[in-house]
């Protein structure tokens, strides 16, 4: 059960009560405004309690909220979208959606991880967990974008790459490794946005980028909290502890210098105002593309190289400190 769904249930009931009282107030001569005010106060108090300072584990649940806008909701707000299908080898993976798109006036290649919005769609989209053919589609579209000189815009939202038998038989490792490679050598600007879950190598495969944007309550982690708990402690029920230790929130990643910017969400999460959230995200993507557009390809690639080259190189400095000790 989703923690946020559970916790916001009381709020939604209050919201309904307030609306009812307001309607009644308008019709009756009886003045209900004190009751309304009291309820509104209670409402904001609960809202502060729930969303004022969310724990990492609550943020993971917010990222997984069933009503949270998915990649399709973002792509729908592009001025134009022409979907391209398939990996040219095996099949069309519906966990990946991609194609030519217009973001305002700009022509781009949009590539996204797409989870389902209900059980039926989730089965079709494998809960947003791409298979090797999905990553080969990503690779193909990224290559095409680089070939044509179109910037790449990705939306990341996956628990991780599919861990099934078929995926192993069709070389999931190679498919992800090849995506990483393609994004590394791309001669065009890449802007990646983590809109929900950023699970492990399966998310990284679409987010080697010149600019990484994260939604306020999205997460990005070396493994899903459940996966980490299973790996380290053979106990998936310790996921909450893993979520705390992994430093996986957007705010943590901004500190590490992995995320470049955070797009704020309305109180209660992106699903409380999808249109507003989406338009803010698209504006930030557009701004990032405008900045990157002026860089020549060689400079862009060099900056991208240095950006990743620096991550985790700080031990050298610390070692110097240790060396100068007694």
């Amino acid at each position, binding site marked *: 059960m989703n923690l946020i769904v559970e916790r916001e249930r009381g709020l939604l009931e209050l919201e309904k009560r307030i609306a009812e009282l307001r309607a009644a107030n308008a019709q009756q001569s009886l003045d209900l405004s004190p009751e309304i005010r009291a309820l509104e106060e209670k409402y904001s108090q609960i809202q502060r309690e729930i969303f004022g300072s969310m724990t990492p584990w609550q943020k993971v649940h917010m990222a997984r909220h069933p009503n949270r806008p998915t990649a399709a909701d973002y792509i729908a707000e592009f001025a134009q979208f022409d979907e391209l299908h398939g990996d040219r080898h095996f099949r069309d993976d519906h966990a990946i959606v991609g194609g030519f798109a217009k973001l305002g006036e700009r022509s781009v290649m949009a590539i996204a991880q797409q989870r389902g919005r209900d059980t039926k769609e989730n089965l079709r989209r494998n809960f947003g967990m791409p298979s090797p053919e999905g990553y080969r589609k990503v690779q193909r579209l990224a290559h095409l974008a680089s070939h044509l000189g179109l910037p790449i815009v990705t939306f990341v939202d996956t628990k991780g*790459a599919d861990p099934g038998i078929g995926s192993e038989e069709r070389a999931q490792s190679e498919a992800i490794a090849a995506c990483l490679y393609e994004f590394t050598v791309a001669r065009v600007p890449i802007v990646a946005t983590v809109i929900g879950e950023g699970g492990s190598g399966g998310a990284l495969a679409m987010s080697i980028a010149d600019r990484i944007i994260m939604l306020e309550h999205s997460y990005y982690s070396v493994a899903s909290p459940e996966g980490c708990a*299973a790996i380290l402690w053979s106990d998936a029920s310790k996921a909450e502890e893993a979520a705390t230790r992994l430093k996986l929130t957007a705010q943590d990643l901004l500190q590490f210098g992995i995320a470049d910017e955070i797009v704020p969400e309305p109180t209660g999460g992106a699903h409380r105002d999808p249109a507003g959230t989406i338009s803010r995200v698209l504006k930030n993507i557009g701004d990032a593309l405008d900045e990157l557009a002026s860089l020549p390809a060689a400079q862009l690639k060099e900056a991208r190289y240095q950006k990743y080259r620096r991550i*985790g*190189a700080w031990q050298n400095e610390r*070692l110097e400190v*240790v060396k100068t000790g007694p």
Partner: protein
Amino acid sequence: MPDWLPRRRAKNEQAEDAATWSKCPKCSEVLYRRDLAANLWVCPRCGHHFRMSAVDRINITVDGDFKEIGGDVLPGDPLEWVDKKKYATKLAGDREKSQLSEAVICGTGKIGGFETAIGVMDFHFRGGTMGTVVGERISMLLERAREFHLPCVIFTASGGARMEEGMLALMQLAKTTAAVARFREDGNFFVTVLTDPTTGGVSASFAFQADVIAAEPKAMIGFAGRRVIEQTIRQKLPDQFQTAEFLLEKGHIDMVVPRTDLKATLTRLLDYAAAGHRARTAAS
């Protein structure tokens, strides 16, 4: 029954005895470690390839001198990780146990006469997991190889990305990929030898970005761990699944090479690449 056997089976076995004898995990044959070493840590009875230490691997692969690169890059604790133990304590324990400072040794040396940049991962240090130091050392190795136009051979052995370094560990997939791409774009030759086990973040990055991918017999290679897949599909997987032989049949790797043939095979590969390099240099 040999007279040392009861002592071996006793709970308080002496350290030097444990160091002298090893039991084959496959066929249960008890082997004198000196014989095992002479046979390149391959069971003479059943051919099982024991997991090797990085130092032993270098000794059986490199002709003479080996000049280490990045040995002074040491792990920190960027997440200040604590579970049952502190990450720092886990690192200290592995350092003690494996006599290594991290899960990979990188450097340059000759293989069959060819000067080569060589990286060797070691499963005995944090399960060969890739954290910031492994990523940094591999990147330094590839940068050195690129600078001197050396071919690069990396022996992988890894359970994937290191959880205790969180996203900084995951970013090492990106960093090593960038180093591989730069190295290869200059026309250099990259070989990986996948040893038991090679999974997760290492298999999904530089292990599968090589020009030639070899594997040792029966090595376990895959993206998701066996346990994860079995939990997902709720059934046992066949023994053959995710072995080197399975990957060869599916077309994911170039060759499965027994350890006893490995150095000769690598030497031949390096020779082909050197011939190509000579021809290109002459033509330009």
